């Protein structure tokens, strides 16, 4: 190969290498962004599902409370609204009428069912009101879990790899903001 030929080949090679490097850097940045988004969605999804579960439980709890406390029926919601619900349930044609009362009731029922909440971080994920927390598992208060989840969310935004659900739960358990219910040692109690 002549010297000129060699130089041409070398220059061509350099250009190819520069192009490869540029493309690799670009793709690398894109993959990094995708990773960050995936990590962020892990925490968002977990928080969202727990919140959805809590709302559902609050609604159910409000409804049960309503049926058990006859006085509450009268004082909180009013006799007329209660009667319209019963009427709506009993008569097939009363649905539209009952709907009017029900729509206002939905929020009121949830409000009625609101209480202190706890999340189980043991073998399985679970949400329960504080009075329904069972012994023998790791339960943490709702608010402290939200604070810990917020910290993990910030970490995820910065691209920290959080791993699978078990890793995330394990990481949450290490968080000092977490209040563990009924723990004798090694964590805060409520």
């Amino acid at each position, binding site marked *: 190969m002549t*010297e000129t030929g060699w130089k041409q080949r070398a220059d061509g090679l350099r250009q190819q290498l520069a192009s490869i490097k540029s493309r690799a850097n670009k793709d690398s940045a894109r993959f990094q962004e995708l990773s960050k988004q*995936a990590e962020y969605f892990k925490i968002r999804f977990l928080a969202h599902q727990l919140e959805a579960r809590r709302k559902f439980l609050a609604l159910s709890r409000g409804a049960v409370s309503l049926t058990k406390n006859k006085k509450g029926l009268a004082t909180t919601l009013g006799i007329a609204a209660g009667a319209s619900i019963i009427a709506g349930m009993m008569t097939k044609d009363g649905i539209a009428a009952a709907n009017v009362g029900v729509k206002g009731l939905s929020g009121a029922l949830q409000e009625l069912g609101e209480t202190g909440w706890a999340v189980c971080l043991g073998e399985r994920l679970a949400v329960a009101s504080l009075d329904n927390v069972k012994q023998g598992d790791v339960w943490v208060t709702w608010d402290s879990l939200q604070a810990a989840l917020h910290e993990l969310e910030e970490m995820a935004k910065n691209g920290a790899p959080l791993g699978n659900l078990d890793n995330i739960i394990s990481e949450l358990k290490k968080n000092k903001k977490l209040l563990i219910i009924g723990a004798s040692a090694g964590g805060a109690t409520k």
Partner: protein
Amino acid sequence: MEPISHEKKLQVARLYLLGYTYSKIEEEAGTSHGSVSNCVKELLSGKLTVPGVPADRVNDLHQLSIALEKAGLEPSQALLGITLFERFAELGIVPPQLDHWSKLVKLYSPDDFPAKDFFEAALHLHQLEETEGKPFHEVAQEYTSMQQKVVEMGGEVDSLDDKKEALTGEVESLKQEVSALENKRKEIKGLADAESAELEQVKAVVIAAREERAQLNEEVEDLLEKKDKLHAEVSSKEESLIKLKKIGFSEEDLLHLRNLVEGMAEKENIDADQVKDEFFSALGQFVTFSGLKKATQEKSKELEDMVKQKASLAGEVAELKNRRAALQAEVGKSASATAGQIKKAGEKAISAIQQVADTIKKEMKSILGDILDAALAVGEMAAMQEKGEKAGKELEELVAKVQHQLEDSK
């Protein structure tokens, strides 16, 4: 107004609790308006109690009865309703969901689709709308959009995979080229080594030529010495000859005379001095000089021959000198020119090779640096891709696991 019995009062109280009006109670119980009014007052103040009915619930029950009456319901129907309501609540079904369920069942439940399944589906749908705070069609639209995004991302990942493969291929090709260049460099180095070896051979030839020249110098020196010696001898002979010419005898004459004397002494077995004395005595008796003249002429001829021989030797010596000088010049010139040429050519070749080798080395170093940079970037990209894929997979697993666990906890 006459007093009424306790039983009558209880009847009035029960009718009041059932939501009856005063006039209807009067009619049903057969008592006066005043008696009914008094009974109600006692009931509300707690003075009169109905078994099984707490005093603080009296007003609530009366109002409920009136509401049921207005709705056209019997208390037994209301009781059935409450029982149903409690049953639904135990199952986790709240009134808003029940309402939507019954409405949907009425509207859409097909004959071959069990109402229970339909209810569950509707319940989940409602729950979804509640938790998302959006109607189902918007949620479905978002889901479709996300699914499309996932497909697009999959395509992108495939494209990146292809790019990665292409880049890997390019890197391999570059490695091969680098390897070929390395071979070329080795080949050039081999050529340079061969040139160096040839140069060494030329140097050896020059050294041999120098040695040969030194040997010739020595030979010339010998010849010069011989010449000087010969010259001295000739000079000595010339001097002797001059002396002999002056005294009338040549050296050869004397030598011959001596040999003659010694030969006679040996032949006669007598002392040489005695023979010499007798010889000179006999010589003195020569009558004529002709014999001596003849002898002198012969000696002169011999002398001339010797002079000629000397001149011839001097010519030979001069010729040898010239030849030596010419040879020396030739050898010197030849060796110097050859060595110079070889050296020059060798230096030029070495310089050119060195220059090319340096350039190649420099280029190679630079290209290797670039290859390393590119390889590092590709490696980093591959690591990022792996990280992204891992995170995506973990997210999928997390979604499934969280949904499963929270579903199970219901």
